[in-house]
């Protein structure tokens, strides 16, 4: 299904320049995440016998409830991805009111994700890794665990925040009537970004929380 949406703009390589531009950005962004994940794997690859460098079992550190909460967050992000594809489908149908509702649902999904992540960060900083606020405290494992956790989830959370603003802008555009069914390309490009955020979370969730 090539070029699912028809929109304004010139074309290169058989796709709109806007879509090609977003893909180029996403490739660059994926390489940044690849660097983060590879660095995480390398830092984790330590001799457990060297005192203070052992890597904890994430499942035990976060706790079963913590993992299940993050799994719920993953569920919410997947749901917001499906609401995003429905928004695009409705724009293509010309049913802008329904597209507006789907986009609003996507924005709400993103906000819930960020809210749960904020709650999780607060809990981890104050209860699980107290040395972050009090240098006299310590943990019996590598502090790189917390560092890489915050770097990866924080970088991803930043992307979610940008995605929420991006989708909310489109929502306002549809609501005001400035975006019509002829602007399907705009929603498709925003969708690419949002699905990419979902895709990256699948990898972050697996590597940081589960393995």
């Amino acid at each position, binding site marked *: *299904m090539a070029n699912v949406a028809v929109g304004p703009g010139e074309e290169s390589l058989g796709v709109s320049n806007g879509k090609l531009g977003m893909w180029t950005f996403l490739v660059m962004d994926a390489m940044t995440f690849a660097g983060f994940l590879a660095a995480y794997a390398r830092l984790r690859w330590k001799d457990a016998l060297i005192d203070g460098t052992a890597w904890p079992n994430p499942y035990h550190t976060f706790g079963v409830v913590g993992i299940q909460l993050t*799994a719920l967050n993953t569920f919410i992000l*997947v749901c917001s991805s*499906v609401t995003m594809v429905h928004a695009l489908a409705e724009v293509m*149908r010309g049913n802008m009111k329904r597209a507006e509702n789907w986009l609003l649902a996507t924005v709400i999904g993103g906000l819930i994700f960020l809210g749960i992540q904020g709650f999780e960060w607060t809990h981890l900083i104050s209860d699980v890794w107290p040395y972050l606020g009090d240098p006299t405290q310590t943990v019996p494992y590598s502090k790189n665990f917390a560092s890489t956790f915050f770097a990866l989830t924080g970088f991803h959370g930043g992307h979610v925040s940008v995605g929420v603003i991006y989708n909310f802008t489109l929502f306002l555009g549809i609501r005001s009537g400035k975006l019509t069914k002829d602007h399907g390309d705009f929603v*498709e490009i925003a969708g690419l970004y949002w*699905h990419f955020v979902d895709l990256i979370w699948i990898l972050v969730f697996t590597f940081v929380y589960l393995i």
Partner: protein
Amino acid sequence: MAHKEAKWVFHDLLHLQYWVIWAVLLVFTFIEVVIPEPSLVGLDTFPRTFVIIALIMIALVKTVLVAGYYMHLIGDKPAMIMVAATPFIFSIFLTIGIFPY
């Protein structure tokens, strides 16, 4: 007119496909949570190697599903698929390169 109706039918099928992929992603997410802690469903612990390989394989399948069906890469132009696959090739070389083998 017939072409227009065919397009609507195609969109309806697309809607169904989105929900099917959504359900598959949810099932995989549930399996992912259970694999490292099988006691949640009353099973014994799996070997560590199996856990790591299974989790990575599931994550890759989920990634392909999102990229293929939600980002519409399936059926997109081969050039676009190659562009999208570039970071994965890069990440394999990067990971091999920085490991102390």
